[in-house]
């Protein structure tokens, strides 16, 4: 279980690096990923002011 989790984490980093290399200097994919992360972050917070 622990090994699978480490492999999945390493694979995710490698996938990100692959996306970065494939997108070259445009970084549009990175910007899209960050905007999606912002939406998920806002949505995931409990309503607790």
């Amino acid at each position, binding site marked *: 279980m622990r090994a699978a989790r480490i492999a*999945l984490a390493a694979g995710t980093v490698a996938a990100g690096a692959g*996306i970065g*290399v494939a997108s070259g200097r445009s970084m549009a994919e990175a910007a899209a990923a960050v905007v999606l992360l912002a939406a998920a972050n806002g949505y995931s917070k409990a309503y607790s002011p």
Partner: protein
Amino acid sequence: MLVVLAYAAPAVTIWAVLGLALNSVPLASAALAAIVVYALFYGVHETGGRAVPPPPGSRWQVPSGWVRGVSRRRRIMVWGSLLGPGFATRNPYAGFGLLALVVAAVGNIRYGVPLAAAIGLSHALGRSFALVRDVHGPTGSADYIQAILRGMRWRLFDGYALLLIGGIAIAACAAGFS
């Protein structure tokens, strides 16, 4: 509709100003390196199911006097202005801290300001939709366990998103040094 507007307008404004400030100074290279360190550090912790160390954030809460005994419209405006941008409240997931680093890493006002505004809008829309979800959803102690489980799932999602963006940042660093 008022809720969405009350959250989105201040968020877009504050994030756009932040984008302007962060991209007016030469921070891009340092921010890119910081993204790699931050994303891998918190990504590994969050995907490993560990909530510690807590992500950077504020413990400040909206003073009750600001929202108690005021009109509904004013209460929505106060909460929207403070919670929509995302800075003036507790951030349970580390992904939020990465957002400002990414804006700083752009290193170009022409792209940095629109990206920052898009991040602000996106965060505020997510936050306001969550508010609408909570208003119409189940409440009370029966929902507590579900809330804990949901938090664990979001932390895992946040961790993998951090690792993915960390990988992209590694490629960007390598391209910058080559």
